[in-house]
């Protein structure tokens, strides 16, 4: 059975499922309990599950992410919320040096089954400190799973997967997609971690995207189809584990690759996809690998400037055209 929900409602549904079906879960962060979260992701949860299961923390991200780790090591299954992905930088040590590392460095003697939930990306008028898309930092950190849902259904499925995973998972949602509505398979079995998805089939070029750039890539594919260019669109979904097989298989058919993300171009995870292609798909590539991303500037707040740097469907269209013409 499937319900039509907004992305943010799907998050709420997944969290309800988690607290309801897994008694070892606890949820904490800033303004998440009584207030129900700044975006309503945790609306109603405190009323239903009480302060034992969901509670508000001081503005202490390092403190409560460390608390998430320690409680995960000792038997709980915490879900900690970082209100904006930008704030993960104040707690980066707990993420990189502690959460990602404890299992390996202990020789597998501890596990850290926890979820760090955050939302990311620019929005009109938001300054550089509220617009980061930091997925590349996390994906460069062995020990972390990294999930970036692009649809309401994935917001629900991937968050449930993250909660059930015995490894630490960063779930970075797309704030700009919160209002989007779509069918959510609320009765689907919990999926295993990982897996890219071909969301549109095509023969002329492969576009790999994630998060907000997936709907943009699909829109672009529609435009390109009118020009007779059939674009295959892959929603990468998980940066870790990385399902490059799906990408490679597609490129072996299309011979052309465009990678699209909102994060800054240089050192963005698009570079990793392009690098793998330049190695593993070398024989198949018939054109240069193109990347669509925000150029290397901190995000300006003025929409007039944001429009000049934020990647949209039009940029994908243009990149695919260039690639196909070669």
């Amino acid at each position, binding site marked *: 059975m499937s319900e039509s929900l907004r992305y943010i409602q799907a998050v709420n549904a997944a969290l309800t499922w988690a607290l309801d079906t897994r008694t070892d879960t606890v949820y904490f962060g*800033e*303004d998440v309990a*009584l*207030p129900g979260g*700044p975006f309503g992701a945790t609306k109603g949860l405190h009323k239903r599950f009480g302060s034992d299961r969901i509670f*508000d923390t*001081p*503005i*202490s991200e*390092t*403190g409560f992410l460390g608390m998430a780790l320690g409680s995960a090591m000792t038997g709980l299954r915490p879900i900690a919320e970082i209100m904006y992905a*930008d*704030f993960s930088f*104040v707690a980066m040590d707990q993420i990189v040096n502690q959460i990602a590392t404890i299992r390996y460095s202990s020789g597998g003697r501890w596990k850290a089954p926890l979820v760090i939930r955050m939302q990311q990306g620019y*929005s*009109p*008028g*938001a*300054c*550089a*400190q*509220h617009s980061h898309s930091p997925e590349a930092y996390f994906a460069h950190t062995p020990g972390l799973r990294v999930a970036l849902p692009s649809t309401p259904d994935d917001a629900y499925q991937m968050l449930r997967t993250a909660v059930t995973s015995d490894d630490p998972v960063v779930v970075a949602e797309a704030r700009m997609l919160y209002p989007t509505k779509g069918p959510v398979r609320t009765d689907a079995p919990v999926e295993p971690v990982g897996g890219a998805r071909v969301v549109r089939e095509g023969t002329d070029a492969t576009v790999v995207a994630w998060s907000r750039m997936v709907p943009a890539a699909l829109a672009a594919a529609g435009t390109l189809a009118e020009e007779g260019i059939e674009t295959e669109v892959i929603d990468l979904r998980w940066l870790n584990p990385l399902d490059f097989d799906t990408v490679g298989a597609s490129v072996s058919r299309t011979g052309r690759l465009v990678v699209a993300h909102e994060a800054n171009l240089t050192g963005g995870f698009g570079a990793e996809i392009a690098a793998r292609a330049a190695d593993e798909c070398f024989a198949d590539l018939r054109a240069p690998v193109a990347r669509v991303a925000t*150029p*290397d*500037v*901190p995000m*300006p*707040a*003025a*929409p*007039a*400037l944001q*429009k*000049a*740097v934020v990647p949209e469907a039009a940029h994908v269209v243009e990149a695919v055209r260039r690639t196909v013409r070669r």
Partner: protein
Amino acid sequence: MGLPDDYRAMARIRRFEERLAALKDDGEIPGSIHLCNGQEAIPVGAARALRDGDHVTATYRGHGWALARGVDMAGLFAEMMGRDSAVNGGRAASPYLSDPSRWFMGENSIVGAGVPIATGAALTAQRTGSGAVSVVTIGDGAMNQGNVHEAINLAAVLDLPLVVVVENNVYSEMSRIEDMVRIRQLAERAAGYGIPGRVVDGNDADAVADALTEAVTRAREGSGPSIVEAMTERLVGHYSGDVQHYRPAGEIASAREREPLARIRAAADAELTARLDAVDAEVEAEVEAAVTAAREVPYPDPATVKEHVYV
């Protein structure tokens, strides 16, 4: 100083914020805004203790500080409208703007992050012997962020000319400070850094001015940093669009009786009331003129978007 100058300075801030909220409702402000309605006595009182060359570092709720320190009102409106303002060219907007020409180090939209930065301005003052003081303002909730802890101790150890103003407005976003600390007053933490901590009525500009003057003088003399906790209340939501469902009934209404402008009004005799009415009219005119001027400012040229990443 004192009345009616303080009244005017506070009314300018209040009117600015009210007008900004209206502009937001009208869709003229793209991003979210954090207003300081009710907290005006703090920047205004503090400004009396400061002189040119003294640096101020604030938070996203820092419009009042920018105005109190002389940042151009029209420029602020234009910046928040996403226009190519002389303030930051539309790159910063409401929560992160700054103005070197007024020694305004800037707001910050990362909680607590301004305190280490302000410590740096204090270091410069100390090393260059400029005699300047660095004032940083944060909220009550920010006291639980590690960056604030590190910076205050650092300033204490180095005897830096820093004054930390904690605007205790009871809430951090939607959470009450009493649920976020196990102490009565945040200024109690000063003892843990070996520096003075003082609590003042943040709705009384004179009280704030006195406390800041003491702290600033101490800093200027090289006796190091101190903390001033100013008790106040938010008359509006945390940010534009905050419906404040979490606030108990009547809380805001009663706060309206304690807020700095209402207080002065309540204590005013007929003659003063007339003068204050006149001030309000002038402020109203000033704010409207600023909005008009801001609307004249063009939007930034997209071709310049890559400028200023590097020198």
